[in-house]
């Protein structure tokens, strides 16, 4: 029986594999236990591993993350869920002031092997605060790692790597493509390296860097383009960023487009442009360019179609940049 699963199932399977292998892994959050999560990412875990290993919490994100700090200090590897990225902010103080700082604060005496999972991104016709992508803010926090997978295979391998990582990882799951497609994935546990981007498609005339739910959109755009040789990079880890892969690609192509869903200004695209300036300036044949969400609040569903760059817009932008 092949294990053909979608992203949310891959997340579930990663949790299940690691809980079976490592008794110190615990999974908790709002609606995570009995219900198995509002997106069903933790379904079956309480049944299989008991209420001690997978459980519900009171409605309080700060305490969910803050208690995970304590559990990590005291020998566990907590994997906690924020129900949506838009609801991570009550926990912001715990994340920036403690999660990211414990190792440095104690000069290595205490470290926090913990994962904060959150579905992120828009395009699911949801109410306010259910469409956020603020990965850039978290990537700016020293001591934190920020990972975003875009396929079932990567989701599983990266989540297991995040759980095994001795340091805290913010693991953002692109909920727009949670169930978009299935992929054959090993049934057993495996890891993929955090901090490594993936070249999704090789090319030598123009580089597109993207991540999360934008990856299939970029692929779609590129599949319409025969006349330009586009290299597509799935960043996979926002911080620490795989500069080598990006720089090597731009040295080859001379042109780079960054596509992300988050607001443009002060987004992760800016950092990538900065890196390219610092490391590949002389290779540039056109200005590094970004195609992103607007600097606006994510519109409510009657307007959301305008916000996320569509494959058609991506294609147009690629053509524009190639023609520069």
């Amino acid at each position: 029986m092949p294990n053909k699963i979608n992203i949310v199932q891959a997340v579930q399977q990663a949790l299940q594999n690691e809980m079976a292998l490592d008794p110190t892994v615990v999974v908790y959050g709002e609606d995570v236990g009995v219900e198995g999560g509002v997106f069903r990412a933790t379904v079956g875990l309480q049944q299989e591993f008991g209420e001690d290993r997978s459980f519900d919490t009171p409605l309080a994100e700060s305490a969910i993350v803050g208690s995970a700090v304590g559990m990590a200090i005291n020998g566990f590897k907590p994997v906690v869920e924020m129900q949506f990225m838009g609801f991570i902010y009550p926990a912001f103080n715990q994340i920036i002031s403690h999660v990211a700082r414990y190792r440095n604060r104690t000069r290595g005496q205490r470290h926090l092997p913990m994962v904060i999972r959150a579905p992120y991104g828009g395009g699911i016709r949801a109410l306010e605060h259910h469409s956020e992508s603020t990965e850039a803010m978290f990537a700016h926090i020293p001591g934190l790692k920020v990972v975003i997978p875009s396929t079932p295979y990567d989701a599983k391998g990266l989540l297991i790597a995040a759980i095994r990582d001795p340091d805290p990882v913010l693991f953002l799951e692109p909920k727009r493509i949670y169930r978009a497609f299935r992929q054959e994935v090993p049934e057993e546990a495996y890891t993929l390296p955090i901090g490594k981007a993936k070249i999704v498609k090789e090319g030598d005339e123009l580089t597109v860097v993207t991540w999360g739910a934008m990856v299939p959109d970029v692929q779609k755009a590129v599949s319409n383009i025969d006349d330009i040789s586009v290299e597509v990079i799935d960043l996979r880890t926002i911080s620490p960023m795989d500069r080598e892969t990006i720089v090597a690609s731009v040295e080859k192509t001379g042109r780079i487009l960054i596509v992300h869903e988050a607001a443009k200004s002060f987004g992760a695209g800016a950092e990538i442009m900065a890196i390219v300036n610092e490391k590949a300036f002389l290779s540039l044949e056109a200005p590094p360019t970004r195609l992103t969400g607007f600097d606006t609040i994510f519109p409510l569903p009657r307007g959301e179609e305008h916000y996320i760059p569509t494959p058609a817009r991506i294609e147009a932008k690629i053509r524009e940049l190639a023609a520069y």
Partner: protein
Amino acid sequence: MQFEKFNPLEDEMIQVMDETGEIVDPDLLPELSDEELLKLYHTMRRSRAIDSVALNLQRQGRMLTYAPNLGQEAAQVGTGFALKETDWGVPAFRELGMWLSKGWTVDKILQYWYGSEWGSHHGDDIRLLPVSVPISSQYQHAVGIGMATRLRGEKDVVMAYTGDGGTSQGDFHEALNFAGVYKTPTVFVIQNNQYAISVPRVMQTASKNYAVKALAYGMPGILVDGNDIFAMVAISRWAVEYARENGPVLIEAYTFRMGAHTTSDDPTKYRTDEDVEPWIAKDPMIRFEKYLINKGLLKEDEIEPLIEQFEDEVMAAYRSIEHSSDTEIDEIFKYHYAEMTPQLQDQLDEYLAYLKGADSNAQ
């Protein structure tokens, strides 16, 4: 009515009318004219009509996520009814009955749930805040409104809502603590409908009930049958006047969420028919209707036509917004600042130019 002496540690719940529509505590029965009784009833029925039409539309794919209120109408309408027009309503997201009392019009309510920001543009004279999705964050706005009222020497009251789950948030605590210190004119209402999505009361807090939480802030805390419209009106009227003159009050309205959390939720995943069963008999609507029928203010056979009439009104309101609610592109950019920033203007221009180009390419 010395409710400020109510001791929530004793865990007794204030009830005026029991499940059969009998008045069990006549002393507490609020004075209500026939007209007022019918107004309460009609608002409850209207609320239920909106719920059922919205759920239907949602199933047909003509609405987005929707959070039903079924079973909580007395808690919402009873509290909202006690507010003057100059008083403020500060909702979470499941306060339809109060919204109607505060004048949020049905078309706009539906427009909100249909996914348009215009739904939250209530109109200038309405002292109601928009839905607040981040749980309990709105409690602090309620306190701030009250601080402002107090500083101006005015006497407006602010009624603020959250759920049982909402009591676990830090913002809940900080808001009540501020209210205690500044003696703000706030009535904090906890709609304890027994669940926060799937999480039951026992996983939410170890306190005896939610009303006792008031003791931590030096304010009265009152546990009341949230399915009893008379208890809700009585306590709310008292609480509003107490808040107006003295300072904050906390009300726990003990009720039950009969439906799903929202249309995205499947409650069979976490609760059984047996969990729901006992509450069917406690339905605040049935109880109230029994009373009104006994009193001769309502006839059994008037109910169905009334429901139909209200549902028709709701459908009419829906039709008035269904085809006009698409967001104009420039509206996405226009309301972030009093003046659009050059960045936003650029982004809008670039997008419009793209659309124009794509359009002419397509031709």
